[in-house]
């Protein structure tokens, strides 16, 4: 059903079209806040269509509204439904630039991937990015949670790509440390300490590559928070010093 004309935005799929394939999940969520936020984002002249700023702006609301356990979030059908039936306009608004009739897979994954792949489906990726980086509040009220780190990660696309699309991101201490140590703000603070540091994007790309390599000989789950921070700081230092 998700064919070329759907991917091209020429055809819609409704709840009724998909009815024979839908299974109730037994959870109920209010998506009003997400609708509202998408409208605000689309109306905001400072946020360009298809920019990563959209991710940074929507992820907190989406995660607050969708109070799911990780187990529930692993159900790919939920995300397929949300992208195909509930928010297809949003998916197009954010991702139309990747549509290429010769390579339909690029657009298809924005609607259809999910499950263990946490960084492809247009909404699933935002939910996971927030899940892995938000700061829980003392109260149980999702409104009190702090999503500043999520914003920092998602508004710097290179950082979001290089963290959430890697295995290590599934371990929250690594995801949070990567964002804290490699976001624009952190790098700008350090820049003056180095003679000729590479660009922020290069620092992020090279540091996370070295981290991936480091994790071929160390088990990330056996590292404590301090060890993780020390390791990333040391790799980042090598990169900023242009040390081979």
């Amino acid at each position, binding site marked *: 059903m998700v064919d070329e004309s759907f991917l091209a935005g020429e055809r819609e799929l409704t709840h009724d079209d998909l009815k024979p394939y839908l299974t109730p999940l037994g959870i109920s969520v209010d998506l009003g806040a997400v609708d509202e936020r998408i409208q605000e984002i689309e109306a905001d002249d400072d946020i360009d269509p298809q920019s990563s700023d959209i991710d940074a702006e929507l992820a907190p609301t989406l995660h607050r509204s969708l109070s799911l356990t990780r187990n529930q979030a692993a159900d790919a059908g939920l995300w397929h439904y949300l992208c195909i039936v509930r928010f297809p306009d949003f998916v197009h608004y954010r991702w139309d630039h990747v549509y290429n009739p010769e390579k339909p897979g690029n657009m298809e994954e924005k609607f259809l991937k999910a499950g263990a792949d946490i960084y492809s489906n247009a909404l699933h990726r935002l939910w996971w990015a927030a899940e892995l980086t938000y700061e829980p509040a003392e109260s149980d009220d999702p409104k009190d949670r702090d999503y500043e780190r999520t914003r920092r990660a998602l508004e710097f696309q290179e950082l979001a790509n290089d963290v959430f699309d*890697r*295995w*290590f991101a599934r371990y929250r201490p690594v995801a949070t440390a990567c964002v804290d140590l490699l976001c624009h703000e952190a790098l700008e603070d350090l820049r003056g*300490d*180095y003679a000729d540091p590479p660009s922020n994007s290069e620092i992020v790309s090279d540091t996370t*590559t*070295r981290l*991936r*390599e*480091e*994790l*071929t*000989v160390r088990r*990330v789950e056996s590292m404590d928070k301090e060890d993780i921070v020390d390791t990333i700081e040391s790799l980042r230092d090598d990169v900023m010093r242009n040390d081979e």
Partner: protein
Amino acid sequence: MTAEWGFTTSRPTDARYGDDVAKYAMSDGEQGLKTFVREVLQNSNDARLENDEPAEVTFRLETLEGDELRSYLEALDISTWSEHAGLSGETESGEHIVDAMSRIEEEDALRILTIEDKNTAGLLGAETADESNFTALVRDVLFSSKSGDTAGGSYGLGKAVLWLFSGLSMVLFNSTLSEPDPRDDSPRLIGRTRLPTHKSADGETVFQGHGWYGKAEESEGAGRSRPESLWGEAAADRADPLRLTRPDSSGTSIQVVDFRVPTAEERLDDTELAEEITDLTLEWFWPAIYNDNLKVNVETETETREASLDVHPKYTPFTSCLSERGEAVEELEEPGDITDTSIDLTVPPKTGDSGETDGELALLVRRAQPDEVHKRNSVAFVRGAGMVVEYYDRDKIVVGNEDFHGVLLGGKARPWGTGTEATETDRVVEEFLTAAEPPRHNQWERTETLANTYSRGFKKAVEGIKPDVTDKLRSLVAPNVDRGATGPERLGNRFKIGNEAKSGRSKRESPSSQRVSGETDISFDETYDHWVFEGNIEPLSDGYEIREVTVSLVRMGEERATNDRLPVANVSSNTPGVGVSLPEENDVQVGRLNPSPGTTSVTFEGSSDLDQRRVETRLKVSVDIAKRGDE
């Protein structure tokens, strides 16, 4: 005689200074107290007179308040200085200085740190000398005139830390000279401040920013003047309210006004600072203290601490290497045992000269007692200056190694503890190692000075020191290993890491495509810290020959291969008629084999560049084949 501040003027078109470049060159991301203590003590250590007495250094921390503060500030001609500082508030560093002034006024308190040394040369040399202790420490930027090839500093950058640690960017000097150069009426008193370039209140005059405190005197050029040193009685009279009175010995007192640690989150109190200065002194200067060349005290208003190795025995494992060197043994069997071995260092000739020098460094290793945990498993690198250049951390060099402390003695330090004197060769090594130290003197590495002074071979010499130390240590501290003639090599075999299973060797079938077959093997050689690989290739079908084989080393990531490649350092082949080369692909060196026509089977072997990171690495072999006889 009155003393006053004077500021050098410049033309409106001259370069402007927002701050002092040397401060930034020195700070290099590390503005903590360590750099300060190392630089200050190195200055005094280098200036020690050539006699049997140590250079004596006292760090004195004082906080001035109330009347005491007012008479100090009056003696300092603070009103003239403040007028200029107030005009420099436009730049960031100027703003900090203005903030510091208001803080002092508000708190009615000022902390000063005076570093007084004795049995040192003092600030010798005329105000206008080209090269002298005076001009190097007080006047010039980025010049150095330290004498002798043993001097710790050789860039003239170190002194910049003095101003960096002054909230007002102001430093005063009072010196008793060891010889009458340029005058015989010591003491000699002068102050310097480094403010950003600023204009007079009426906007007519541009001041370059360098200010001098001393006797006002017209110097060359109309309207330009800078105060010069006060001498004799005039200097002594002024030194008294400035708390810079000299003891009866040659040397220099340096005062950092409004002393602060630039990177400290909170202002440390005097006791905390004194403790830290004492600790850092011992950490970096235990060799000079042990050799009685340096004595350091740290005074606060309530107590005096001596940086004594007896009082603070943390460094005994290192000093024992020297004191018990005569009783060295062959193998480290018991805690406390010491071995005395050497590392070769071939010093290339200087540019234009010929003939290299076969020198050596002494490596003393002592097996640690169970309770000796401080700096365990590190090697202190030391040369004749008596300062520890670096602690080379070699923790867990071999799985399950015995704990140890090591000292690597280079240059004039090599014979320490043997009762013999340094040789001419040691002096050549000393000079080489000095040139191998960057401005902060915190390691031996390839520097511009080395490149400018020595012929080819300096890189190999200086970069070979650490791997050689590592090899030696492995053979000394590895557990349960037969330390026979082939010690390091045997260890290398035992502790190889392969790639597939992350331990042990790995064999992979069919490396290139479906058209060739063969076997490859890659493993990590711990002896030389690089990967070694070998393989053989032949086409699957008869009638084909091999045209080209390219070998590259791919670094793996957690989930799949990365785009990162490790350079192939060398490749060779036992197959007759195979040409080998090391071209670059995507900026990384690969191994290339070009067999002669008709070759149907190729073997190869080779190794990677040094790889300190030791992450999982795989061998990628790409093979071009063609039908036999095709062009």
